[in-house]
């Protein structure tokens, strides 16, 4: 027990949590930027949507890399590719469903 405690204490993770603080600031900035783009810039709806979706993916990356340490340990690359695969499937399910269901809407 005591030995294990000493080991965690000496991880070199001590000191100020820079990663977390930078991640938190980035999340807040990206959230407020999205609100600003939607409310203050009068861009066409599709452009607005495109920009805020890019912000969403950036913010998801902040969580994954700054907070969740996805690349950590020797499983890091498999974990990262698993998440990339999951998000590609996520995009295919969403875009594919909208695409399929938008056909023939004029006949409904």
């Amino acid at each position: 027990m005591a030995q294990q405690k000493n080991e965690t204490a000496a991880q070199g993770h001590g000191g100020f949590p820079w990663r977390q603080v930078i991640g938190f600031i980035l999340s807040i900035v990206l959230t407020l930027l999205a609100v600003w783009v939607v409310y203050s810039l009068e861009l066409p709806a599709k452009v607005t949507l495109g920009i805020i979706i890019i912000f969403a993916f950036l913010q998801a990356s902040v969580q994954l890399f700054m907070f969740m340490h996805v690349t950590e340990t020797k499983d890091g690359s498999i974990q990262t590719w698993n998440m990339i695969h999951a998000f590609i499937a996520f995009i295919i399910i969403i875009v594919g469903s909208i695409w399929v269901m938008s056909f023939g809407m004029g006949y409904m």
Partner: protein
Amino acid sequence: MSSETAESVQGPLEYSTEEERLKIFGFWIFLGAEVILFGTLFATYLVMYGRTGEGPDPGELFKLKDLLIETFLLLTSSFTGGLAVHEMRRGNLKGLLAWLAVTILLGLGFVGEEAKEFIEYMGDGASMGTSAYWSSFFTLVGTHGCHVSLGILWIAGIMIQLARRGLNAVTARKVFIASLYWHFLDVVWIFIFTLVYMTGMVM
């Protein structure tokens, strides 16, 4: 044997045994499946977008102020969850417990705000059975809210174990996995924020 070398090989406590390392790896696979679960709910929501029937439109009911309160509660809780793991890796049990407590309180604030929001919508004539649009809205946002509620109970349970058993490889792994779950719920919320609320207010 010098303890210096043992430390540099082992890394953080939650990865100190093969079993704990594999459990963390397994949890990442679970999170991949969760991305797909929410993908199907987002797909249904976006396909049903605009099918409001006789009910109100989302743009009439969504309020930016309430949305920002919920978003900042959850963003901050994800940050404090990160600080909890940071303290754990420094071997500071008290700091870990304190940040986990703050994380849970912010999570409770989020769930409370969301419950208030849902009750307001129902008062304004938008409930689960109002229209295809509102059914898909409550299913998507409600599934996320259930995940957050479960996360609160889970972290509370781990805090009890930490208080009783202290920090060891098993409890450290449990904290780390719960923190992954908690940050993941913030990832899902970012997409709800963007694809449900921001989109509903502009389009």
